[in-house]
């Protein structure tokens, strides 16, 4: 085990000067109790997010990838305080959110928004588009009446929808259009930070590109900072400045979008990259594939030592004893493997 002070020292080094960072996450944990029996006694915990630390610079996109259940959504929700963290710090624009309550938290909420995967489930079917997009403006008392109407129409234009659509209902729209409605709503209050939680996973390929292009345009226009969550590493590389790879509640590697493909250091990142097909048969025929054995272990009972040791093709004895911490293997490139 790495000593706590040593770990903090490496973490500090990972944090660039404070004013550059819009978001600072330190030792974030989110454990869910597992309850059993009639008395619903807690018999254990799902360690959904366990000691995650990273920063996001202003105007930057940090991509968060990993397979289903590794803790991506939980991380996003814990940062936004939609699900209160078990431990750790989340500092946005210099304010620690974890202990913030009431009006102060409500004020901070204006600055941070989330876009969900499922545009079908995340929009209230009984509200029309004008009400859906205008709701945050109401809730925060930002605009009302004629002014609100104008602002809503403006927002629809910005996301590429016809402003005449205000009186229509979600079921009248396609998946891609519904995602645009969700995006219009998310940017209604001029947020600085947006968590995009698999915003394109439910969409067809040709529509995915439309939505990704829109997210990029909006970032350029409004200086947005994104945490872009996805399981599709090709798309994450396309949109992100830096990429963090998660496995079983931990970040195992963080690197610049180029380095994560050119020089992945963690054996899990290497396997993940090799598993993703490239739409080019000539290149595919030449690529070396690392096929991992078995499935991801349960987050209720993660392996001792390195959490990847049950599947790692290059594990050593030490991996069953020592839990590797993130360390800087190259400037700006962090990996949590003893041999990275």
């Amino acid at each position, binding site marked *: 085990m790495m000593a706590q002070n040593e770990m903090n020292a490496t973490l500090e080094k990972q944090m660039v000067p404070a004013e550059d960072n819009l978001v600072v996450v330190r030792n974030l944990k989110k454990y869910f109790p597992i309850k059993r029996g009639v008395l619903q006694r807690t018999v254990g915990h799902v360690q959904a997010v366990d000691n995650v630390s990273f920063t996001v610079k202003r105007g930057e996109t940090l991509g968060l990838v990993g397979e289903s259940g590794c803790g991506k959504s939980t991380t996003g929700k814990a940062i936004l305080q939609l699900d209160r963290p078990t431990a750790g710090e989340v500092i946005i624009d210099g304010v620690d959110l974890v202990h913030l309550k009431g009006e102060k938290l409500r004020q901070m909420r204006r600055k941070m928004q989330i876009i969900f995967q499922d545009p079908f489930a995340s929009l209230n079917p009984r509200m029309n588009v004008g009400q859906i997009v205008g709701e945050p403006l109401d809730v925060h008392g930002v605009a009302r009446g004629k002014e609100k109407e104008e602002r809503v129409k403006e927002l629809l234009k910005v996301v590429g929808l016809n402003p005449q659509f205000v009186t229509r209902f979600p079921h009248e729209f396609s998946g891609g259009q519904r995602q645009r409605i969700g995006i219009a709503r998310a940017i209604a209050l001029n947020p600085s930070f947006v968590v995009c939680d698999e915003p394109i996973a439910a969409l*067809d*390929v*040709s529509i995915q590109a*439309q939505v990704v292009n829109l997210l990029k345009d909006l970032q350029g226009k409004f200086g947005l900072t994104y945490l872009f969550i996805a399981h599709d590493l090709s798309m994450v590389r396309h949109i992100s400045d830096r990429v963090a790879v998660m496995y079983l509640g931990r970040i195992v590697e963080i690197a610049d979008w180029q380095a994560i493909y050119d020089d992945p250091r963690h054996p899990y990142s290497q396997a993940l990259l090799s598993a*993703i097909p490239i*739409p080019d048969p000539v290149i595919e025929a030449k690529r070396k594939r690392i096929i*991992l054995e078995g*499935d991801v272990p349960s987050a209720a009972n993660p392996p001792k030592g390195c959490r990847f040791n049950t599947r790692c093709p290059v594990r050593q004895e030490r991996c069953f004893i020592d839990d590797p911490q993130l360390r800087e293997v190259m400037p700006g490139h962090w990996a949590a493997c003893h041999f990275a």
Partner: protein
Amino acid sequence: MQQQPLLEVKNLKTRFKITGAYVHAVNGISYSLNEGDSLGVVGESGCGKSVGVMSVMRLIPQPPGEIYEGEVLYDGRDLLKLSSEEMRHIRGKEIAMIFQDPMTSLNPVMRIGRQITEALELHMGMDKKQARDRAAELLTMVGIPRAADRLEDYPHQFSGGMRQRVMIAMALSCMPQVLIADEPTTALDVTIQAQIVDLVKKLRDELGMAVIWITHDLGVVARLVKNVAVMYAGFIIERSPVEDLYVHPSHPYTLGLLGSLPRLDSHERERLISIQGAPPDLVDVPQGCPFRPRCPYAIERCVEENPPLLPVSITHESACWVDVTTGRPR
């Protein structure tokens, strides 16, 4: 002359009757498959990929469904004309199918071992002991650890990836000539997807069966198959050997699909070329070329006439009036 193909689908058309109208799901698709061949069928959701192969397997609910034109020749016989009894035999033994959701083929309340031995006893005439040994062998072959000990387990005791393997073992139990895989890895994580694709590839090479692999993922196809058919609005709009499709995409829709995909290995981040609009409603397939409302290459002719598959080279066909390399009529 060429040998007679193992499976030949000719001008297949399937529709569904809904109140006052038809959903035109499959609008005259043709392809053929030789022994040991592999065909990828690619297209976005709702374009008729599943209905196309379910029609081949005669698994379309009738009504509301209706296969109203075409032939499906297997070993020289038209499957569309067989009795249900004869068709059951084909499905058990000659052509097998695996699905996105393994629970469509697995019985949740029956032990895994029994589910496999049942087919072996019925179609392969094995006795109980032989069937059990073979079941364990099949599960081992698809990579289930300690297979013999798991015959008594129920489907819910397996993980998603392992269940997919069990379904594959079942599909392979009678050594089919053709395996049809309908998006079997879509719901799985990429590392598990890679395991399954690898497995099917290995089994195909070892057993020499022909494979039809349906997917919306042009990447998976690049890894697995020899030939590709791209579908749009119930039509096959481009068909070619896999290498050629990526080097010389010849239909504007295929071009758009490839442009929409960022590549894992890219070092530049150009804006993605998205396709504008959305696929048509199959109740109201537009007259003329079905892709016209979204097509940046459209010319006047596209409004009236739907292009058939036209040769681009000896092995490559595209259903488009325009030569996409020049933008001029072909």
